[in-house]
């Protein structure tokens, strides 16, 4: 039954190509397969930009003292895309950056898999660092993605970023 009530939020409705098109245009999308970092990076190439900063959030083998086996991310795709667009728009207002892209992966992930990728390009370095961190923090705070961690004893729990 758990699989049933969550199966909708473990996959996306859009095709992979649509996802990258939306990510390039709006700066944010959800994806349900491995994130192609090179494809995103190429999208950000710009000869006027001297700085590229990226963040990759990877599944750790532990959370606090507990050993993590794997985890599953669930997403509310349509709200995520609308909210993500607003976040990237706001980032471009707040920071002197040229472009930014973030993608969050949903579904079952293994230790080492990339769950989120944020890339920013700008003429100078500090705005790229500042915007990348701000986008990441804001995505973590506002994008409707949920996470269930599975432990070695097969138990699991829902996590939350703000307690």
């Amino acid at each position, binding site marked *: 039954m758990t699989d049933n*009530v969550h199966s909708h*939020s473990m996959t996306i409705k859009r095709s992979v190509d649509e996802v990258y098109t939306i990510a390039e245009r709006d700066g944010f999308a959800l994806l349900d397969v491995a994130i192609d970092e090179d494809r995103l990076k190429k999208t950000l190439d710009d000869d006027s930009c001297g700085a590229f900063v990226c963040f990759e959030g990877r599944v750790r083998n532990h959370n606090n003292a507990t050993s993590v086996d794997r985890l599953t991310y*669930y997403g509310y795709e349509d*709200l995520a895309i609308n909210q993500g667009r607003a976040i990237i728009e706001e980032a471009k207002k707040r920071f002197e950056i040229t472009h930014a892209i973030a993608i969050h992966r949903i579904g079952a992930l293994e230790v080492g898999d990339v769950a989120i990728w944020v890339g920013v390009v700008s003429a100078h370095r500090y705005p790229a660092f500042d915007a990348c961190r701000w986008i990441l923090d804001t995505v973590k705070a506002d994008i409707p993605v949920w996470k269930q961690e599975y432990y070695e004893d097969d138990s699991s729990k*829902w996590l*939350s970023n703000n307690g």
Partner: protein
Amino acid sequence: MNTTDVMDNIDVKKNNESLITINILYFASLADEAGCHEEKVSIDSSMSLIDLYTQLSQTHRFSRPQSELRVAVNDYFAKWTDLISDGDNVVFITPVAGG
């Protein structure tokens, strides 16, 4: 899709003209507790989003108080004071955990 109708559990007015039907999506722990991903409910058009969550909480025994949640209407975050219209998609958002 596991859709249930909890309309019987909702305290609606007898006057059908004020009734609207909305669609609720559940994610994460709310989906676990509701036992479904989606349900249609008929409510009085004057019902507030807070009252709607309170009603659904009683039906599904949601453990999260409304104060810990956000609400989205038609795929955008909404205010708890926003009005609900017929055909709206309403989603209660438990604390998120992306990244």
